């Protein structure tokens, strides 16, 4: 049962991708319908798979001597991420029916989206490290193709290439980890390594741990690799919602959570993880304060919330981080999709040209405010519960200075969230002609808003599923009521609520605080230049492209040179054979 479900979850979107591309752009209505059908079917299969979760290997395909067995495991960590990827994927596809109405190249768009959904589901469901690397690269490829979807816009193409290069360079860390695993244990299956980290030589284990940290930081846009995510906002908004908020950037957090029991004993690893998460959260919250582009603010807030998850993993709170991932996917997708509705109707992404849209877009205002409240961590909504769990894990297990910075970041989160809501929906009305969200957009937004309000009720069953299928992670599961009680009783909750209230008050009284604002003027300048990291990343991208141009000269296309290359390869192979004995 579980094996067919896994094949459906990964295979249906891929078949859909081929069909949508093959049908061609002339029959766009059929393309829309097919894309929706396949993504919804895959989402349904993933949800059914949740009830069949188990800790044992479900599918095992023998791929020959060097590649080992291609194994798929349907354990708790994997199935819920697969469910998120496919369900939010189907909602984004439904949203695209209106957003991408009349665009050229629809077949390419849907094919890439469906290919991505299948690849992401495969990434979290496999237990073969090499196969995970393959799926990792597939998601990076689809992300690049979709960011640069409007390929006559040079900014979009530049953003896509930057995202590609930075995430690929990080992927090298993952490949190195896979090869180390193979050389030490003879197979790519990481479940045995997680259960028993002693299988690997400690220095190589440390290398693997930091390689995975680099890969995760590059993929999840954490410090110091975070500058590709704001530039990736050139992508169509459903793509930003799906790939850059709810699924692909979670791959890095998933990697860290999956390998945590194996790496927690490596000296300095947990502290590095905490520092990476903390710095990302803090810096991006500051940058979000000064940004005027609506999607850029949301991108910075994504980096910030991912920093929370990484911080939680570093403190050992695996369940807290995964629960926050779950809540964040829902409310961030909600925010991005409603931002998409706004941008689609207003025609610009600059918040200074919006304002007073509340009267003309009532539905969008309601769902956007729900998402914003969840992001800020207001009680009852799911963001509140998960953020409190993260902060509690930080207080009990992590260093105090990290906890204080995360607390300040929570206040900053509230501040920039309300700034964003105010600038878009309240204030002086803009003169632009706007219309409310269109029907398909509403169909996509409503379930997400509902999820933001009630999804935290699933906390208990979620925890018990994780505990039963992940024996190595030592998760201590409580029921939903117990979790609620724990959060309500913890003093950390009230400290955090106080800071959030402080953030609210600061925004409300912002006119009285302009003196402080002027003192931080230099901070605004630094924030707009991403604290110098943008320069570093521009340098990396430029150098990589320069090297690629140099290497192009070796492709002469002349038979003689090709044969010479062949002979050199032959000599190399024979020498290796002779030396190998």
């Amino acid at each position, binding site marked *: 049962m579980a094996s067919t479900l896994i094949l459906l979850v990964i295979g249906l979107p891929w078949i859909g991708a081929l069909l949508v591309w093959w049908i061609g752009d002339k029959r766009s209505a059929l393309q829309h319908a097919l894309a929706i059908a396949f993504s919804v079917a895959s989402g349904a299969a993933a949800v059914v798979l949740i009830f069949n979760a188990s800790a044992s290997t479900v599918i095992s395909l023998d791929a020959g001597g060097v590649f080992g067995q291609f194994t798929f495991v349907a354990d708790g960590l994997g199935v819920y991420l697969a469910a998120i990827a496919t369900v939010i994927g189907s909602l984004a596809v439904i949203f695209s029916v209106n957003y991408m109405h009349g665009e050229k190249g629809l077949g390419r768009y849907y094919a890439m989206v469906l290919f991505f959904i299948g690849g992401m589901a495969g990434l979290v469901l496999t237990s073969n490290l090499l196969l995970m690397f393959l799926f990792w690269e597939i998601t990076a490829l689809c992300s690049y193709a979709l960011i640069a979807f409007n390929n006559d816009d040079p900014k979009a193409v530049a953003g896509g290439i930057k995202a590609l290069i930075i995430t690929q360079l990080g992927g090298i860390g993952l490949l190195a980890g896979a090869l180390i695993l193979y050389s030490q244990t003879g197979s790519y299956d990481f479940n045995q390594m997680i259960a028993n980290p002693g299988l690997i030589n400690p220095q190589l284990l440390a290398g693997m741990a930091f390689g995975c940290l680099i890969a995760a930081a590059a993929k999840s846009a954490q410090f110091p690799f975070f500058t590709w995510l704001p530039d990736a906002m050139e992508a169509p908004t459903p793509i930003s919602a799906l790939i850059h908020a709810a699924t692909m950037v979670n791959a890095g957090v998933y990697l860290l959570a999956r390998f945590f029991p194996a790496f927690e004993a490596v000296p300095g690893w947990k502290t590095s993880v905490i520092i990476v998460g903390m710095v990302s959260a803090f810096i991006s919250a500051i940058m979000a304060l000064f940004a005027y582009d609506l999607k850029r603010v949301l991108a910075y807030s994504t980096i910030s919330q991912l920093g929370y998850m990484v911080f939680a993993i570093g403190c050992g709170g695996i369940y807290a981080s995964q629960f926050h991932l779950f809540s964040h996917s829902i409310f961030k997708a909600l925010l991005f999709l409603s931002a998409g509705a706004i941008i689609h109707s207003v025609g610009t992404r600059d918040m200074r040209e919006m304002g007073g849209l509340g009267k003309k877009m009532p539905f969008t205002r309601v769902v956007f405010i729900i998402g914003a409240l969840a992001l800020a961590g207001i009680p009852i909504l799911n963001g509140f519960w998960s953020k409190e769990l993260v902060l509690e894990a930080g207080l009990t297990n992590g260093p105090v200075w990290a906890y204080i910075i995360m607390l300040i970041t929570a206040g900053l989160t509230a501040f920039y969230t309300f700034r964003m809501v105010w600038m878009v929906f309240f204030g002086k009305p803009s003169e632009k002609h706007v219309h409310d969200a269109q029907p398909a957009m509403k169909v996509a937004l409503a379930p997400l808003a509902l999820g933001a309000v009630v999804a935290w009720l699933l906390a208990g069953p979620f925890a018990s599923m994780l505990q039963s299928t992940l024996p190595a992670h030592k998760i201590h599961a409580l029921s939903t009521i117990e979790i609620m009680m724990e959060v309500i009783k913890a003093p950390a909750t009230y400290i955090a609520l106080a800071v959030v209230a402080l953030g609210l008050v600061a925004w409300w009284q912002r006119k009285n605080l302009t003196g402080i604002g002027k003192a931080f003027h230099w901070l605004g300048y630094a924030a707009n230049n991403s604290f110098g990291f943008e320069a570093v990343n521009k340098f990396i991208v430029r150098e990589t492209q320069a090297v690629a141009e140099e290497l192009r000269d070796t492709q*002469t*296309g*002349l*038979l*003689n040179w090709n*044969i*010479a290359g062949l*002979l050199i390869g032959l000599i190399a192979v024979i020498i290796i054979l002779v030396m190998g004995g």
Partner: protein
Amino acid sequence: MTNIPIIIMLAVLCLVGIGFYALLTTRNLIKVIIALQILVKGGLLALVLAGRIQGQVMVGQSMALTAIVADTIVAVVGLALAVQVRKHHGTIDLKQLTKLKR
């Protein structure tokens, strides 16, 4: 030097070497096909010799038969290509057939 296999193997290696040298240095499309033929003849000899040494003459011969068929087809299609290239581009110099290169 009365040992037969070593003589034949030396001959095979020389043929392979000559074939590769021609592939490395020639710029004439027809010469490339001739060089390929020489290369494959060396391979043929090696296959049959190996079969003979192991005592399984027939297996070596059937493999050599497949190699002859494949090689002939390559020569046929290659020559047809060369004729067409001459008609369309007016030259069979490899260095000037670079329309696909940016």
